[in-house]
């Protein structure tokens, strides 16, 4: 039987990645709590586990490297050396080596700094290395010996206590007998006490076995491998002299136990042979996900229930009579419940805690601190907050940029901080939490803040805005997310040239998220990313606009208003607003924005006559027949003008971009129960646009009936990037 373990390589890689992340974060924690044994034990265990598995998959270099690492960790654990900054720096560099060694791309090749690191580690624990050198001597010479028939006498005298280790002497004798032909067995029962005194928990017997075998003597010894401390064992060759080269050719020569040889034999037996097989299976780096068994168990239960519900329903349909109808309704309702729960649970499988992602940034901040000489601490919060796996992956880079930017540009140098009367150590907080069904990520630093005046100057210099542009401080601050913007002259190793911040914004928007920034000069900056929980499904409000059904993400809906006359007002040259409880909210007529107006005019004359002239008509006309749904994204509210609310429903989001190019204002589409396709409104995207500027051309140049109104207002017709320019 050949048992192939290479199928578990993927699990090992996953697990090791977790161990490495754990080592890293614990090492960083060790800086503030040097000598904490719990932390040291955890680190040691992780390194140890990596080493334990590495050998099974042919990661020979990894075994070698972790061995050195482990020796140093063992010293630390035993408090023989202290976790100085120097030691921690070496260990952190080792973490990088471990990552490289496990990266399928490097095929386990040692990176250049690995051996110097090993040497450094060894320097901290001289003694350990010499032990290792002797232990790894191959002991195969002894094992290979003898293909000749030899006769041995084996004396086996177990200690009284041998049963304590659950050793069964009979099993040992049987194993011994399997190795050759037994010619005589003598039972020694002289130690056996009278029955009254006999303790059944003790062994009073001993045996002498004479046997002929072709096997080397080492195999005989191996039978007693586990009991050498629990028995007296003498193996003597009877038939001939031992061969001359073994020395001391005495017929009674007792063969000593090469205990170490047995152990190393096992070590040596595995790694090399497995290498080829495990390599082969490493190439395809499939995206996989680990799910707790609880989640899977519940899924299986649900599927079971669904199957039962289906069987019941099918049965009823089979023998259908009108009286069955209420029961059938019930059965369908049960199925619906199951389906919905199944749906939610399946989605939940994709949810992962953000903590795994957050942990990496501790190192990022540490590295920047080391390189810049700044004292920076990263505080994490809400690590258990769960988020869709694909989102988590897509967030990694934007968050890296934001954290680096905060550490590199946000936090001041120690001198500057002292001068400003701030604590020497800068703090960056990274936290996640749920708020009304969305995930909020905040990156808060107590650094210098974003100075709108400096941003303005830089933006003018870069030609991003005109010198006379009127922009609020908030608008100015958001300029740092514009392409080609950088507030720093010095290009730093970490934050680059301001490339990145615009990418951050784009990435967040791609996730249907909203990015916002609050900052106070001298106090610090808070960047907030607001994201939907998952991209795959959302609770939708179905609305009718003209003859179309649209979906609004329910979470962004604040309220619905039937406007009374006077509530809608036109702001000169800008557009329309609705006044709700003293708040002025810009209005967007979806119908026009989506270019449905003209199409409507050719279809139903009665309604369109008023619609087409809406641009220069009294706003009261809208009031008669419209509803306003107020939606919110970030801190921005918009009133969407539409015709009817149809209902509320969970919808599965399908991407449009695979089929059409990116449509501003539409984040995707869904298929409704009747098979119709309904676009889903991108509220965050709308909020990011300047609505007034979108409306402006409409109010100044009302369209004639029949002219294609899609040209200026339809998002389909607009160029990318126009929204950004509209700000200026």
């Amino acid at each position: 039987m050949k048992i192939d373990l290479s199928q578990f390589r993927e699990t090992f890689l996953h697990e090791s990645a977790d161990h490495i992340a754990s080592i890293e974060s614990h090492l960083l924690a060790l800086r503030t709590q040097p000598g904490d044994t719990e932390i040291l034990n955890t680190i040691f265990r992780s390194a140890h586990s990596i080493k334990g598995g590495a050998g099974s998959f042919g990661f020979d270099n990894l075994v070698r490297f972790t061995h050195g690492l482990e020796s140093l960790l063992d010293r630390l654990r035993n408090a023989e050396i202290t976790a100085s900054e120097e030691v921690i720096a070496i260990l952190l560099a080792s973490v990088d080596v471990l990552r490289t060694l496990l990266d399928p791309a490097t095929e386990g090749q040692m990176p250049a700094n690995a051996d110097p690191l090993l040497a450094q580690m060894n320097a901290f624990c001289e003694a350990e290395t010499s032990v290792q050198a002797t232990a790894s001597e191959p002991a195969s010479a002894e094992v290979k010996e003898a293909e000749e028939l030899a006769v041995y006498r084996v004396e086996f005298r177990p200690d009284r206590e041998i049963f304590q280790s659950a050793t069964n002497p009979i099993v040992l004798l049987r194993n011994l007998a399997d190795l050759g032909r037994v010619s005589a067995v003598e039972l020694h029962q002289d130690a056996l006490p009278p029955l009254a005194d006999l303790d059944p928990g003790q062994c009073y017997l001993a045996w002498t076995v004479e046997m002929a075998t072709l096997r080397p003597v080492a195999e005989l010894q191996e039978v007693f491998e586990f009991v050498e401390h629990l028995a007296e064992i003498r193996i003597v060759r009877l038939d001939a002299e031992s061969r001359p080269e073994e020395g001391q050719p005495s017929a009674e020569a007792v063969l000593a136990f090469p205990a170490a040889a047995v152990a190393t034999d096992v070590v040596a037996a595995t790694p090399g042979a497995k290498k080829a097989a495990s390599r082969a299976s490493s190439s395809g780096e499939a995206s996989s996900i680990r799910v707790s068994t609880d989640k899977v168990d519940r899924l299986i239960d649900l599927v079971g229930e669904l199957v039962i519900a289906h069987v019941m329903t099918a049965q009823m349909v089979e023998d259908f009579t009108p009286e069955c109808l209420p029961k059938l309704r019930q059965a369908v309702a049960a199925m619906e419940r199951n389906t919905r729960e199944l749906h939610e649970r399946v989605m939940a499988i994709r949810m992962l805690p953000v903590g795994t992602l957050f942990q990496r940034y501790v190192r990022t901040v540490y590295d920047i601190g080391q390189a810049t000489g700044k004292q920076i601490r990263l505080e994490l919060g809400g690590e258990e907050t769960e988020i869709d796996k694909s989102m988590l992956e897509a967030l990694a880079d934007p968050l890296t940029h934001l954290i680096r930017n905060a550490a590199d540009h946000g936090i001041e140098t120690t001198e500057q901080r002292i001068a400003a009367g701030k604590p020497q150590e800068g703090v960056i907080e990274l936290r996640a939490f749920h708020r009304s069904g969305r995930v909020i990520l905040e990156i808060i630093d107590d650094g210098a803040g974003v100075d709108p005046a400096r941003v303005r100057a830089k933006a003018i210099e870069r030609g991003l805005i005109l010198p006379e542009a009127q922009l609020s401080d908030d608008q100015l601050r958001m300029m740092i997310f514009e392409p080609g913007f950088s507030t720093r002259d010095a290009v730093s190793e970490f934050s680059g040239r301001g490339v990145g911040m615009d990418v951050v914004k784009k990435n967040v928007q791609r996730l249907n998220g909203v990015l916002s920034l609050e900052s106070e000069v001298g106090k610090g900056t808070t960047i907030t990313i607001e994201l939907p929980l998952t991209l795959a499904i959302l609770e939708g409000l179905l609305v009718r606009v003209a003859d179309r059904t649209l979906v609004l993400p329910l979470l962004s809906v604040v309220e619905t208003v039937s406007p009374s006359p006077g509530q809608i007002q036109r702001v000169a040259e800008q557009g329309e607003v609705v006044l709700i409880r003293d708040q002025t909210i810009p209005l967007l007529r979806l119908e026009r924005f989506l270019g449905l107006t003209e199409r409507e005019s050719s279809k139903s004359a009665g309604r369109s006559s008023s619609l087409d002239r809406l641009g220069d008509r009294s706003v009261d006309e809208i009031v008669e027949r419209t509803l306003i749904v107020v939606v919110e994204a970030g801190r921005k509210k918009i009133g969407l003008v539409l015709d009817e609310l149809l209902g509320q429903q969970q919808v599965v989001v399908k991407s449009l971009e695979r089929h059409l190019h990116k449509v501003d204002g539409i984040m995707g589409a869904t298929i409704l129960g009747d098979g119709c396709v309904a676009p889903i409104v991108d509220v965050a995207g709308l909020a990011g646009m300047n609505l007034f500027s979108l409306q402006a051309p409409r109010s100044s140049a009302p369209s004639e009936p029949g002219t294609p109104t899609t040209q200026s207002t339809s998002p389909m017709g607009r160029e990318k990037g126009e929204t950004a320019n509209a700000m200026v």
Partner: protein
Amino acid sequence: MRKVLIVDDSVSMRQMVGYTLRQGGFEVIEAQHGQDALDKLKAGPVDMIITDLNMPVMDGITLIRNVRQIPAMKSKPILMLTTEALAAKKEAGKAAGATGWVVKPFDPEKLLSTIAKVLP
């Protein structure tokens, strides 16, 4: 079918040992650490235990000591599965009542033959 309890905090190690044992015709129960193993044993004894030594919550040596206190487990073989070829560790395991050991990385065939060596 004979039941073996595998105790290791490493998922991949549990999977590898578990797979090997199933191939060898054993029924396998898994535990993540010593305490977990003791909890699993409350449901009834097993025919053998294979345990890692270095584990969180409860290490292997403590587990072995505890298992030997369970009457139904007194005479069941326990193998230590460990990277520590260190004599000191082995001695501690033996003193606690371990029957034998297997060194990681293990060879599947060798693991099965070692089991045969201690299992009646």
